[in-house]
Structure formats: C-alpha cells, structure tokens
C-alpha cells in the first residue's frame, strides 16, 4: 500500500489535469486517424475511457485517504499565480462526480460499441470531447473556465444527440440547441455581472471578495447570481425549464441518452458548488440567497416529473422523467443546506444516475425486442408514442396462448434474453422508485432521517423540521409510488403481455454494461456505510468550503527550472 501512496504523492498535483487532457488528446488522435478506421477508434476510445476511470479512481483514493477533514488539492495548469490564471481543484465532491462520470461513460461506450457507433460519423471523437467537458466542469475552480467547459460539453452533446439522424432527432435537437444557447447567454451575462462587481473570476477569490461587496452593489450581485443559477437550473432540468429534456433524451440513441444523464448532474453539481462557495458569506445579504427557490423549485420539479411519469408509456420517456425526478430531489435536498441531508442526496445522486442511465440502455433492448428479431438496423426507426396497451393488444392473433383452455403458459421456457432484460428492468425500476433493498431507498432514508429524525433532533436547527421537511417527506414517498406505478405498468406491458415475438438477439457487449451498472448498484447496497460516510464528508466539505478556498488561494506556481549556462 505504501507504494501506491508514494506513487500518488509524486503524481498528485499533475494527475488532476489528466481527466481533461487524456480525452482531448485521444479525440485529436481519432480525428487524425479518420472516420474510416472505426475499429481503431473504438479501441482507442475504450482504452482512453477505462484509463480515465483508473485515473479518477486514483484521485478519489488520494482525496479520501487524507485524514484532513476536507482534502483538497489544487493545480495551476498554466502556472500563473492564483487569482490571475485558471486553477483546477479536486475535493471529495469533485472526485465522487468524476468517478461516477467515468463509470457511466464506460458503460455507455461498451454498449455503443456493439452497434450504435456505426449509426453515424464521428461518434468516438465526440464522445471523448463530451467526457472532457464533463470532467473539466467537475474540476475547474474558475467561473469563466466553467463556462468554457460547459460549452465544450454542450457542443459535443449537440453532435451526439444528432448521432444517427432522423426526423425525430433533428426536431428534438433543434429545441435542445435553442434552449442551451439561451442558457449559455444567461451564463455569460451572469459571469459578466459577477466580474463587474468583484473583478475576479477565480471561485475561491470570489468567495473571499463577495462578503465585502458594498451594500449598493448587492442588488446587482443577486441579479448576477440569479442569472447564473438560471443557467444551471436549465441544465439540471428544474421546472419550468425542463420541457426539452424528455423529448431530447428519448430521441437520442440509447448510449448517448445514458451519457446525457450526466449532463443534468453537471448542472446540479454546479448549483451545489457555486451556491455553497458564493452564497455562504457571513453577511445577511449573501447568506443562503435562493435557498427557498431551490427547495420549492425542487419540490415542484419532483411533483411535475411524477405526474409526467404516470403519463408516459415509452421506456425512454419514463427514464427521461426519472432523470427530472432525480434532479428535483437533489435540488430540494441541496436547498436544505444541511450536511447530512446533502450527503444522503449525493448517495441518491449515485444510485439514481446509475439507474437512469441503465434504464435507457435496457429500454433500447426492450424496444428492439418489440421491433422483432430481424432488427439489427432499427436505429433509424421513427418511434412515435405508443398507443395505450389495451388498444394495441387487440392485434394479437388468436394463436397466442392467451387462453387457459388452449394450452398452459406455465412450463413454457423463458428465453434467457427475455429473462435478462426483464430482471434488469425490474431492478432498475426499483432503484428509480426508491424501494428497498435498493441504494436509492438507503439514500432516501438517510435524507428523511436527517430531516425529521429524532436521533439528531438536538443538533438540528429548528428551521429544518418545518413545513419544507414534511413536504419533502411526502413528496419523496409519493414520487416513489408514482414511479413504481408507471414503471410496473410499462413492465407488465412489455414483459407479461403475450407475445409471439422471438427473443431479442443480445450481444455480450450489450449485456456487459447493464451487468456493470447492476453490479455498481449492488455494491452500493452491500457496502453503503463507507460510501454514505464519504458522501457526508464530501457534503460537509462542500457546504463549509473554507479549506477549498484556502487551498486554492495558497497554491503557488512552480518555479522555473534553473537555466544552465546562459548563452
């Protein structure tokens, strides 16, 4: 173990930049190789993604290993001194998000390599650039740099959403592009206002300067913060800015949609990071500006998503609204500004992201089974919203084993492919609904325990057990029920309805990512305590960012190497 520690210690400050540089370089090499060598690109992509996963895991180990209450490591990529150059920083929250992003990316990529990557051009370079944007957004400690990484991420996502083309994707892509361009302009305006007031873009420097803003500028400060918040909330799909999400995600190819689940989490992460850094000043004007908007906005998002889930029949749309539901829960939990609640929320973030991504993948397998076995090319199929099942089922011909008299359904062997798809659908549906024994249940329990629990009542401030606390309790339970109803209805329709269809032809490459995500969820159930403890530590450090600020402000550029013999 000491070898690992030593290796990490020597690599550490520079290793931070690897999750950004590796995808960028890989994408450049892929573009040079060209689209004709897709096999080589796929191998490169898998190697790079798995390599990034290893790097992120190493970073996680490095920040989790330190016994310091909040382990933060800062890195100055351009070697400028702190408030002037761009700074990168990793703490427990960033490391957690990076590892989650790498796991989802690996699963999505493996799934895509089975066949989706052949549906259009430049899938692999776009995929790597998307990863670069996501990782960069998690790592940066500079407001404008965050904007740039958002744009990298979005630019790649426009290309990926249109991967495979088709009318439905183009239509959804047009809306997605428009709303995100509007969000970017809002982001830029917010950055401009904050720079105009504080004269700095470094997050740590901003956090130190904002409490000293003169009272006359506070209105402007709040306006700037609200503009920024709006941009992040559009990305995180908070109501009423989320109408774009379900059409876009259900139109996208399955592996792309699975990857896009991460984009909403980048929005949630940015809200948490910036809100905790910038709006936690001691002065009244800063203290928790927008907390109520987060809490109640999250509640409304959660409600709308639950109702929308009841109204959806298609697995893609169900997963899409599952994403919105998860965003609503997270935003509301962040608004409570309590380390234990936010810690539970981070655990919930892990579970729900894994499950939603997996549901998009499983949904693709389900849809393929419906389209028939001769469906190696349903990529261009124009899907419309399906009719309610009782209307559709009239078409089932009389030869089906509908009736008890015509022969028993019992004893008929279930093809393993159907069993696999069915079992994984049920498992991920349980996670999204948050029923025991899934990790989402543990997370919801942790959040609710912190909100209304008696055990810690002594240490909780009075405002926490309040109207909001009870509303959260009710909504979490009701939304779980609604999700369960909607998902089990879809499950019954897809798996229990008598079908004369041959089982879907599954490839090992398509089963592997589903198994991987299933195993990740199982891991969260088997050993929840260390993960939950880590998440709580991460939340504590994120909400009290003193050491984050101090580490970044005290980072010093590396001195130039001594020049040998001036000539």
């Amino acid at each position, binding site marked *: 173990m000491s070898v690992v520690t030593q290796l990490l210690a020597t690599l550490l400050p520079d290793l931070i930049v690897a999750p950004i540089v590796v995808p960028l370089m890989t994408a450049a090499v892929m573009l040079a190789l060209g689209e004709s060598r897709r096999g080589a690109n796929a191998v490169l992509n898998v190697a790079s993604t798995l390599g990034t996963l290893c790097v992120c895991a190493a970073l996680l180990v490095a920040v989790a290993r330190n016994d310091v209450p909040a382990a933060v490591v800062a890195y100055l990529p351009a070697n400028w001194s702190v408030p002037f150059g761009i700074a990168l920083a990793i703490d427990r929250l960033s490391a957690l998000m990076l590892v989650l992003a790498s796991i989802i990316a690996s699963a999505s990529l493996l799934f895509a390599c089975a066949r989706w990557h052949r549906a259009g051009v430049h899938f692999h370079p776009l995929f790597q650039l998307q990863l670069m944007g996501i990782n960069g957004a998690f790592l940066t400690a500079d407001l*404008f740099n965050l904007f*740039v990484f958002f*744009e990298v991420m*979005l*630019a790649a996502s*426009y290309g990926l959403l*249109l991967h495979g*083309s088709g*009318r439905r994707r*183009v*239509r959804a*892509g*047009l*809306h997605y*592009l*428009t709303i995100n*361009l*509007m969000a*970017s*302009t809002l982001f*830029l*305006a917010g*950055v*401009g*206002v904050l*720079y*105009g007031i504080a004269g700095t*873009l470094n997050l740590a420097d901003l956090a130190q300067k904002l409490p000293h803003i003169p009272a006359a500028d506070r209105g402007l400060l709040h306006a700037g913060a609200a503009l920024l918040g709006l941009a992040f909330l559009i990305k995180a799909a908070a109501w009423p800015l989320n109408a774009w999400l379900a059409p876009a995600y259900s139109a996208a190819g399955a592996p792309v949609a699975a990857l896009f689940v991460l984009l909403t989490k980048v929005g949630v992460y940015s809200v948490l990071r910036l809100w905790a850094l910038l709006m936690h000043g001691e002065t009244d004007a800063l203290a928790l500006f927008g907390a109520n908007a987060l809490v109640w906005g999250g509640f409304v998002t959660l409600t709308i998503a639950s109702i929308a889930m009841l109204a959806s029949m298609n697995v893609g749309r169900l997963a899409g609204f599952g994403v919105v539901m998860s965003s609503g829960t997270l935003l509301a939990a962040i608004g409570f500004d309590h380390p234990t609640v936010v810690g539970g929320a981070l655990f919930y973030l892990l579970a729900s992201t894994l499950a939603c991504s997996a549901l998009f993948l499983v949904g693709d397998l389900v849809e393929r089974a419906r389209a028939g076995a001769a469906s190696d090319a349903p990529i261009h199929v124009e899907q419309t919203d399906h009719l309610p099942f009782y209307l559709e089922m009239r078409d089932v011909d009389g030869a089906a084993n509908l009736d008890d008299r015509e022969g028993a359904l019992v004893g008929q062997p279930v093809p393993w492919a159907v069993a696999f798809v069915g079992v994984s659908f049920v498992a991920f549906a349980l996670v999204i609904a948050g029923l025991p024994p899934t990790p989402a249940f543990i997370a919801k329990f942790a959040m609710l325990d912190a909100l209304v629990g008696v055990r810690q009542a002594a240490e909780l401030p009075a405002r926490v057990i309040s109207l909001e606390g009870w509303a959260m309790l009710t909504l979490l339970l009701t939304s779980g029920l609604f999700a369960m109803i909607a998902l089990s209805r879809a499950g019954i329709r897809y798996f229990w309805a008598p079908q004369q269809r041959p089982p879907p032809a599954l490839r090992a490459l398509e089963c592997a990512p589903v198994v991987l995500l299933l195993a990740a969820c199982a891991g969260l159930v088997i050993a929840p305590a260390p993960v939950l403890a880590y998440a709580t530590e991460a939340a504590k450090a994120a909400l009290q960012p003193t050491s984050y600020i101090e580490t970044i402000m005290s980072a010093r550029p590396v001195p130039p190497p001594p020049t040998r013999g001036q000539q």
Partner: protein
Amino acid sequence: MEVVLSLVIGVLGAAGIWLVLQPRTFQVVLGLSLIAYAVNLFVFSMGSLWIGREPIVVPGTPSDLDHYTDPMPQALVLTAIIISFATTALFLVLLLVSRGLTDTDHVDGEE
C-alpha cells in the same frame, strides 16, 4: 457613451428575445445572434468604458488601472464570440437539415 451603449444592448436584447419566440427557424437563429451580440457587448462593458486607453502595458505609462482599460473582459468576449459563432453555424446546419427532412421551416417540424 454609457447611455448609448446601454440603449444598444437593450434594443439588441429585446429584438433578439422577440425573434427567438417566433415560430420560424430563421427568425430564431437571427434572434440568437442578436442576443449573443447583446451579451457580448454587455460583458465587454463590464470592465470599464474608456476611449483611447491601452489594454496592455506600454513603457512610460504608470501600470495601474487609472491609465489602462481592463483587458480581461476583452479576452472573455473573444472566447464568447468564437463559441457563439460556432454554435450559430451548427444551428444553421440543423435548420437546413430540418427543412430538408420536414419540408417546413417551423421550429416544430410541422405547421
């Protein structure tokens, strides 16, 4: 100068928002461009508005912000212009594809 600039930003922004809310894709792309101009000017003005001041240190002039204009917003705007240019170009491509696939220039692909 401040009044003129704020009027320009306001008019560009208002016209842009009105156009973005229109049903035709071409109107939307024009609106997005106008909003991008408005925001770029806005960010540019956030440093401070001066005429005839250098953004980069010249020998002989004391190096403080009383004698220079803030170079930071200019750098930010440069990046923002490139990004908005690229995304507008992408939007134009998408607009043409949508037009080709649906035979209409309505943003929803149907009248």
